[in-house]
């Protein structure tokens, strides 16, 4: 029996025995030492492979990190505050390309601040403008080699469309910002529209310095100013000239990439970031944006390099709504919300139609389910909630009456305290249980928990294995069908011990995520046959320990007790923050994130930790 290739989520070929052991990345054959040793030394792979390949020098497109072993902390240990020892080899990515989300937010903020009167309106138009310019979206890149999951920031490939799209967008914005006398005045100053030509050069210089500081995220030197002025030609403040200056600045390497040249070697293999580089790194990480005026001033003065100032600023940034927005972006990717299926595609199936009854999913239902998780994360972040609190949360965050009806509650108004939805937690929300089919999908549900939430890398199935169709049975529950189909020895090793149990514990939710105590079965025409009780008891395995559970609440309890989810969070958030796979040098950062998550710090405080580590404030020298 062949296990569906959906589960071929690692790129190694261990034996099935791996499913009964502590599952890691079995492909990795590199040696790695602890924090006091030297760097991991991957031995396999090509330095040019784009998904996890490479030795210690990361490559753009790969997310870096080569095939180093994933770091997944299991103990809540606060690491030493200081830097880990020097690395034997460089591991930092080449300069990072801004993610698509960062690029868009950066443009919006530049426009907003450069055009005090009308900037908001132009900023609101930026997403459509960028889209129309065909600037590409990022691709979810799973750094462990799987085809599911992954993070957008780890897609560091450069496409022709990045260059073409940014060029087009920059030109359009240049025109947009200068398309009236009022906007030109707003953007450049009255010196651009007065009758006095003698002040034009000074006017242009001032504009280049101001706009350039926003676009380049640093101060411009005289050479820079002369260069950017040079495109203006003999009519320095004419609309077309200013539009060209804007476009040239918005296509600059400093805008497209994080250029971090450093202020000097702090230790072998490490350079410290300059004040402006550090401010830019903070703003891009927490806000997907550029430094605000306050942070800019701290960079200009150099005060951001003072530890106390830096720490206070990090705390302040984490409280900003933009940090909460970035947190939602991260959680949506970590929770694999992209894999939530459409719920309205099987309405022609008589069995599915019989199951859904009066509730007819639409093309909006899936989005409502995604929005609900967005609301959950947002509420948790804003209200100083913790990661475990988020996982255990049983409040209704759906603002859609249709989705809320699946929970049997009214839609949330987004302001008042959300109501309670009994028997729900993260694992049992619609976006984690619904399949949009006539059957639930226990196997896929299980993999999403084991691999997605717990970061356990499942070995691939034996190559000769073969799956069979999980039929909609008129007389057997989905669990019974799946259990039987995965019973052969070649399947059971992984399915019965690791995967299926995590899918079975939520079988008390139907294919559109409604709670049920029985599974009503149907014949192929959608006529009811028999209703059978659903079973949610299972023996789950977490970090090598087995637990008998009665259902999802207990399963989640053991998940949280194990600390595996927090460890997974720490690993994934590191990758989100740095845009690459971790190496041994990064262990302290991941351990610190894990420690704060495990000790129930609120989400904002946990996420600050990545920036409070000294590693965040420097770059590996190449």
């Amino acid at each position, binding site marked *: 029996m*062949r296990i569906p290739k959906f589960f071929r989520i690692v790129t190694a070929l261990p034996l099935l025995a791996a499913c009964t052991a502590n599952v890691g990345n079995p492909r990795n054959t590199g040696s790695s030492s602890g924090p006091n040793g030297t760097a991991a030394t991957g031995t*396999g792979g090509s330095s040019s492979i784009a998904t996890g390949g490479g030795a210690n020098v990361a490559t753009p497109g790969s997310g870096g990190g080569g095939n180093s072993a994933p770091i997944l902390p299991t103990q809540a240990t606060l690491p030493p505050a200081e830097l880990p020892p020097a690395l034997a080899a460089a591991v930092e990515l080449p300069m990072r390309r801004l993610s698509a989300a960062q690029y868009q937010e950066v443009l919006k903020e530049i426009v907003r601040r450069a055009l005090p009167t009308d900037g908001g309106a132009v900023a609101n138009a930026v997403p459509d403008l960028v889209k129309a310019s065909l600037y590409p979206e990022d691709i979810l890149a799973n750094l462990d080699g799987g085809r599911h999951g992954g993070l957008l920031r780890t897609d560091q490939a450069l496409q022709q469309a990045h260059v073409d799209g940014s060029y087009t967008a920059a030109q359009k914005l240049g025109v947009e910002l200068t398309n009236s006398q009022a906007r030109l005045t707003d953007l450049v100053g009255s010196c651009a529209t007065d009758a006095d030509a003698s002040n034009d050069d000074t006017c242009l210089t001032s504009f280049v310095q101001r706009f350039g500081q926003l676009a380049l995220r640093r101060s411009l030197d005289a050479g820079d100013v002369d260069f950017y002025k040079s*495109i203006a030609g003999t009519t320095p403040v004419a609309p077309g000239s200013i539009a060209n200056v804007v476009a040239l600045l918005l296509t600059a390497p400093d805008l497209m990439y994080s250029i971090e040249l450093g202020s000097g070697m702090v230790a072998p293999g490490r350079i410290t970031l300059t004040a402006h580089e550090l401010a830019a790194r903070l703003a891009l990480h927490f806000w997907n944006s550029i430094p605000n005026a306050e942070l800019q001033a701290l960079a200009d003065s150099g005060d951001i390099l003072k530890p106390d100032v830096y720490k206070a600023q990090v705390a302040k940034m984490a409280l900003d709504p933009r940090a909460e927005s970035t947190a939602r972006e991260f959680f949506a990717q970590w929770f694999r919300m992209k894999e939530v299926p459409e719920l309205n595609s099987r309405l022609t199936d008589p069995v599915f139609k019989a199951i859904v009854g009066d509730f007819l999913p639409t093309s909006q239902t899936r989005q409502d389910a995604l929005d609900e998780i967005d609301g959950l994360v947002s509420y948790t972040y804003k209200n100083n909630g913790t990661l475990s609190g988020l996982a255990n949360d049983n409040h209704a965050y759906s603002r859609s009456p249709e989705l809320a009806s699946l929970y049997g509650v009214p839609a949330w108004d987004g302001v008042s305290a959300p109501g309670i939805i009994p028997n729900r937690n993260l694992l049992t929300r619609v976006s984690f249980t619904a399949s949009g089919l006539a059957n639930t999908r226990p196997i896929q549900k299980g993999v999403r928990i084991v691999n997605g939430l717990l970061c356990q890398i499942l070995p691939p199935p034996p190559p000769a294995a*073969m799956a069979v169709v999980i039929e909609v049975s008129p007389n057997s529950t989905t669990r019974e069908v799946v259990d039987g189909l995965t019973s052969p020895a070649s399947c059971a090793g992984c399915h019965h011990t690791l995967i299926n149990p995590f899918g079975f514990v939520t079988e008390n939710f139907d294919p559109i995520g409604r709670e049920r105590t029985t599974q009503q079965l149907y014949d192929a025409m959608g006529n009811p046959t028999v209703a059978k009780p659903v079973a949610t008891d299972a023996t789950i395995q977490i970090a090598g320990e087995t637990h008998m559970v009665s259902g999802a609440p207990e399963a989640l309890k053991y998940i949280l007790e194990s600390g595996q989810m927090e460890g997974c969070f720490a690993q994934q958030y590191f990758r989100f923050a740095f845009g690459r796979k971790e190496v041994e040098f990064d262990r302290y950062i991941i351990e610190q994130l894990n420690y704060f998550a495990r000790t129930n710090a609120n989400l904002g405080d946990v996420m600050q930790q990545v920036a409070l580590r000294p590693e965040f404030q420097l770059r590996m020298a190449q």
Partner: protein
Amino acid sequence: MKYVFAQNRRQFLLGVGGASLALPILPSLLRVPKAEAQALAAQKYFAYMELPHGAVVQTEAFPADSMATEMKSYAGFTVRRGALPSTPTNGEVQLSGMLRAPSTLLTPGLLAKMNVIRGVDITHYPGHGSGQSLGNFGDVTGGVAADGGPGPSSPTIDQVMAWAPSFYGNTTVAERVIVVGDISWANSNPAAHTGAIQRVSQSAPTNVALFDKLFGSQTQTGSGSAPPPPNTLLVDKVVANYQRLISSGKLSSVDQKRIDDHLQRVFELQKKLSQPTQSFGMIPPRPGMTTVDSSSDGYDVDPAAQVANINLWTDIAAAAFSVGASRIFTANLTETFSDYVGDWHDLAHSSEADRTAQYVKANQTFFSGVFAEFARKLDAISMGDGTTLLDASLISWAHESGSNSHYGTGLPLITFGSARGALKTGQYLDFRNLNKQLPKTATREASWHGLAWHQWLGTALQAVGVPKTEYTGLSGGSAYPDFRPADLNDLLAGDMDARYPGTETPYTDAVYAAAGEVLPWMG
């Protein structure tokens, strides 16, 4: 994959009254001046469409063995061929259960330009890979190398063509490769063949956007009129800006490589802006936009809607080919072309008995509704010299894997077009080694080992005019890509009851030695 499409664009491209794309409009596009006709005579076109999963029911995929009447020894075993028949039955040409189409579509003329190829195998374990059937073995789940590690990363052949000096040369095109889906890979600096192998993103998020990208700037000025003179001042300055950074001497070597890669792409943009994009026909006027979201209710189980959607993409590809906006089109489609309401993924990995009816129907729908239709569109476009655009093309269709999901054997490879006579057509080519059969089991169809997929990749490259000197150097050997897995023990683990002597090394030295040649009877 979800697409958004414009109904009225479809109507436009099909022509008023639902006539075909090519007949009422496209022939008039080709008013090629004599000077251009000469240059055009050397130009070739390539297209490739891939469906996921494989799981191709063998008994329904290929013509009867009796059709292969001619035999010869090749690479150490006997290979076979025969001519494709063209006799319709009840108004339908039936080459196999899967390869069926109305005789009005699959005409004798079109059949004469078709090849059905059997027995060209992916010689490693074909896990999921977003470019393996086009030659990138570095992104295959489950590993490819003997130690379970990844295979070599290589540019896919569409990108090899796109950047080969002999393909586009100095010609400027709007898009070197029209990429749909997740299938194309190139170096981070494709012109220099340096840097990491990275995924090339889809050319445009929707076919509406693709149309605008290919034709937009020209159609805005009116059909057939010259585009406005480009303002190269800005792009020249952008080039200077990146060069300024490089020459500052402040960058580390890896940062400099990053900027070099970026600069190469700015050069590509500069070239497009400063040299007129090749255009030898009338650009279709830009139609209005009424977008329809293909995520609408039931799209996933509506094969007619899926066919219509994908045909919109091939309409634009045909239009792009016809006016020279691009000459390469590659697509990885995730549509099922089926009304099966269960879980398609599970079906794909199921045994033959479970999936036969649905899979055959789905493949037949794609063949007749999309692939043969694409061939017909190209064949209706005159090149002005008695040949058609299809004659100048090599278009091809294959699956991610073969007889079962994750089996490299039994992939049907279907082609149309001779790439201007580089390939012989009208054939059923059977390259299976009948002495190397993996017998039928309860969960698996019978399958045979044959020639290596590398040989098809090299055949395609050579057919479109890319000499070996422009691609073999990229991976070192004479085949593309230069990779030979150690053995197939991994692939066959658990199949101990279904082996023949020597199964572990089914692809001999002779097979790999031949892998750099054009496939038998095709050259």
